[in-house]
């Protein structure tokens, strides 16, 4: 990811700043500027998520794309945040031999997601760890 593309979403990646449609009350992370429920009638505003949630489904990835190959095996999960929205992220610090399961409570942590070799910018972001 190039520098401008990464920079544009720093608030989202570092602090889970998403959006909320005040018209229907749906929270969105990743953020959406257009609420699919209300479309042009939606009044969408910024919202910072707590970073707490639970695992919906998890897998252990052995074959990864790009930078993530050096991190395998790692756990990838769909996490449902307490505010109701879902996202896809790695779950770290789960312990040797411990499997991450549906229903496990998790919380956000700040990690170095990708560094694109020795020359590019370091891309930080939010991952999750078991509570």
């Amino acid at each position, binding site marked *: *990811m190039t520098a401008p593309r990464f920079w544009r979403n720093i608030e989202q990646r570092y602090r889970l700043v998403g959006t909320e449609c005040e018209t229907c009350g749906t929270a969105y992370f990743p953020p959406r500027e257009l609420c699919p429920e209300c479309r042009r009638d939606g009044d969408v505003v910024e919202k910072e998520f707590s970073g707490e949630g639970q695992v919906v489904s998890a897998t252990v990835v*052995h074959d990864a794309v790009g930078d993530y190959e050096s991190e395998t095996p790692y756990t990838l999960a*769909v996490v449902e945040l307490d505010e109701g929205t879902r996202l896809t992220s790695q779950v770290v610090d789960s312990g040797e031999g411990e499997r991450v399961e549906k229903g496990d409570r998790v919380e956000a942590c700040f990690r170095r997601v990708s560094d694109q070799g020795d020359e590019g910018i370091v891309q930080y972001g939010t991952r999750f760890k078991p509570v």
Partner: protein
Amino acid sequence: MLRDVAIVGVGQTSFGEHWERSFRDLFVTAGVRALEDAGVGGDEIDAMYGGNMSAGQFINQEHVAALIADYAGLASERVPATRVEAADASGGLAFRQSVLDVASGASDVVVASGVEKMTDLGSEETNDALAGSADREWEVFGGGNVAALYALMARAHMDRYGTTRRELSEVAVKNHQNATENEYAQYRNEVSAEVVESTPYVAEPLRAFDCSPASDGAAAVVVVPAETATEYVDDPVYVEATEQASDSLTVHDRRDVTTLDATRKAAERAYDEAGVTPGDVDLAEVHDSYTVAEVLAVEDLGFAEKGEGGEFIAEGCGSVGGETPTNPSGGLKACGHPLGATGVRQVVDATRQLRGEAGTQVEDASVAVTQNVGGTGGTAVVNVLSDRRSA
């Protein structure tokens, strides 16, 4: 549709690692075969739709419709050529757009083609290109990839419905078995469930043999108005319905992570338009990019209840001779999966079945369904074809 459409010619290259053959070699071969099959000359073609997911990444080439038209001898006829893309549903889109073009009355003879040249890249770059069918910003960034996303769906399906590892393996076993008679398939060897389960993990529970291979290949189909079809061939195959639906790009935004609503909706629309029910379907070519995808497909197409797709396969209901044979061609797993070509190849194989010319033939096949999915399910195209012989 304003007027009915029929398929009068089909053709494809074999699928596999075609080191000596380039992108343009592949589609020219497939196109020529389809035109010959239809008895149609290049100067009779009114339009061409080309499905291709990622020539930009695989061979750094854009403007591929123009390239295809040019090398297929259609550019000299100034034929309008359009490239359509929906990840690995690009072929399905190309077919559907071709049918709509004829149905609307805008064109009388249209070629639907699909082509992908994947093997010029190393595995790292190939996997990166594939990941473009998922959400780069919010699924791939941080560690997601298409196999892992299907694995998440598989785990959820196993947790909720008790689908087993063995049931997934049976999809691969069945499809390899079916492909032994398919001269165009990439893999014509049988595999056992034990072999499938001994291959290394890609993303748990999916193993290497749960995943369709990267391939090179092309396929093409010629469509005309139904009313003129018998001027070309004695055994046209009729397009009873061609429907398409969208769903969220990401798996995490789906209504239910164990269902592809795009397939369900496209199927609902297609059955409605064709005036058939799932029970009327004699065979289906479905999108087994991963074994679990076939389990979901038999459920979402209505052949099995939600949650019973694994059993359906394991009990032989999807085998030739069973209730609703799925992937008698060998599916993506054994035929190979050149991304943009698959959706057209499914139509080619369904057409052969309805003509009685398939390798692994379903007896008395009269109504066929094809299901083509983009990525993890953001797009689905469902077609219903029939020979109208029993009508």
